[in-house]
């Protein structure tokens, strides 16, 4: 579904993504874990088209989409829930969802909106509320719902549990599980490594711009050494 080969992204002279290769198959939930500054956000932003890679290749559905602009990537079937959610805070909840469905025909957009309020009942009561006043948990659901409004073939998420209270973190993982059951293809960056590995099929570990380990999620979860060396979390329960 999504194939990345020898991807390199630079900020001026800093190379933030070095020669990364990875694959996400249709229907898979794949996660990317790694310490702060590893280059995870940069990698997602490059895939989604917000940053231009210096080298490498991005393939989506057997199409070479390297260097495509974000709006084109979205139309090709790839959506990103950005780091820190980036909700349109001046907008109502409904308007945020509508923007997410901007590429859809009007009738389909309405259908998707109905699906989203079924998937996220909290949003239903708050449709006319200004999005800037949502709680962290509600805003996160809105961010994911907004991305799903384009009915993407692959959904990228950058730290969906960031800054949420523990109960709400659980909600996010429940949601990932539900999306997985419904057959969605997900590529998720997470700091909650153990929690994420429990719901993912496969995982990649990134550090200093490079992929340093990968494999089935259950297998990586059992590797204490990885957590100590690369993630700095002994036992990985943090």
């Amino acid at each position: 579904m999504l194939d990345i080969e020898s991807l390199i992204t630079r900020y001026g002279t800093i190379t933030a993504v070095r020669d990364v290769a990875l694959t996400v198959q249709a229907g898979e939930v794949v996660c990317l874990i790694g310490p702060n500054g590893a280059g995870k956000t940069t990698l997602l932003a490059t895939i989604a088209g917000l940053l231009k890679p210096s080298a490498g290749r991005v393939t989506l559905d057997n199409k070479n989409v390297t260097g495509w602009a974000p709006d084109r990537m979205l139309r090709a079937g790839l959506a990103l829930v950005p780091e820190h959610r980036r909700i349109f805070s001046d907008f109502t909840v409904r308007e945020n969802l509508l923007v997410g469905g901007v590429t859809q025909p009007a009738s389909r957009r309405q259908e998707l909106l109905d699906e989203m309020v079924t998937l996220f009942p909290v949003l239903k009561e708050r449709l006319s509320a200004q999005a800037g006043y949502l709680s962290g948990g509600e805003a996160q659901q809105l961010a994911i719902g907004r991305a799903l409004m384009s009915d993407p073939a692959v959904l990228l998420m950058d730290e969906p549990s960031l800054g949420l209270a523990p109960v709400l973190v659980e909600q996010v993982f429940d949601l990932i599980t539900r999306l997985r059951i419904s057959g969605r293809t997900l590529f998720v960056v997470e700091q909650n490594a153990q929690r994420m590995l429990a719901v993912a099929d496969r995982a990649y570990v990134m550090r200093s711009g490079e992929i340093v380990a990968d494999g089935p999620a259950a297998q990586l979860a059992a590797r204490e050494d990885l957590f100590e060396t690369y993630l700095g979390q002994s036992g990985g329960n943090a």
Partner: protein
Amino acid sequence: MIELIQQIIDGLGRGGIYALLALGIAVIFGVMHLINFAHGELITVSAYTSYWLFASGFNWWFIAPTVIVVAVLTAVIIEFVAFRWVRGAPDFTMLMTSFGVHFLVQALFVMYVSANFRQFPRPGWIFDTWRIGDLSLEVFDLAVIAATLVTLLGTYWLLQRTMFGVSLRAAAEDFDTARLMGIRSNRVIRGAFVLSGVLAGVAAIFWLMRSGQAGPTAGLNPMLKGVLAALIGGLGSLSGAVLGGITLGLVEVLLISRLPGGTAGLTDGIVFLLIALLFVFRPQGLITVRRVERV
């Protein structure tokens, strides 16, 4: 009392035009972070269009809608020829580009037409007044107020109720995230220029009906008023731009009528002084562009 009501209507007439100009500037600033000092060029081009059309025997009924079309085309061409290439550049670069366009258009008219102003007839009803009791209302002011209201309502509907409006507001709030949602940069920016062209076109009709002349610098004064009004309102806030325009118009009229004889020429100076004072106390303008803290 009667006098005050008359001045307020007069001020709303002026302020309405300023509001339309300021709104066009605010729309562009919203999506591009560009203070468009070339906005007045839409008026300049409209002025010459009116002059030439009059010379060819057309009247205001034909010229008015044509002016809107011409202003839109000019806005789209300026975006395509100039601003597209500096998109994403530092704000200062874009500011310089807009100055560049401003002076270039002016120079083109001086070189290929003439540095002199040319006159064209103003509509006959422009000095008509209606008497209601002791009130004598200038028909022109009422026409401006009505046209402004209709245009503002139309713009409000466009921004709030259409997907184009939602896209435009999304791009203004967070451009990258808007692109992630599938909004095309080219399209939304061109749309913003079309909208600013329509607003400038409506303003141009009334500005030109009153001035009745075309010259290379015809757009300078309306541009300055528009930028000032947008600054007063708080750049980036669309409702602020409208409020800023109305405020500027009202303040001007109230000052002119209150300044002692022979000092009315000081109006602009005093207006600038008041604006400077406003920025001392409210550097963000009348309306703060509120960004709710992200949780």
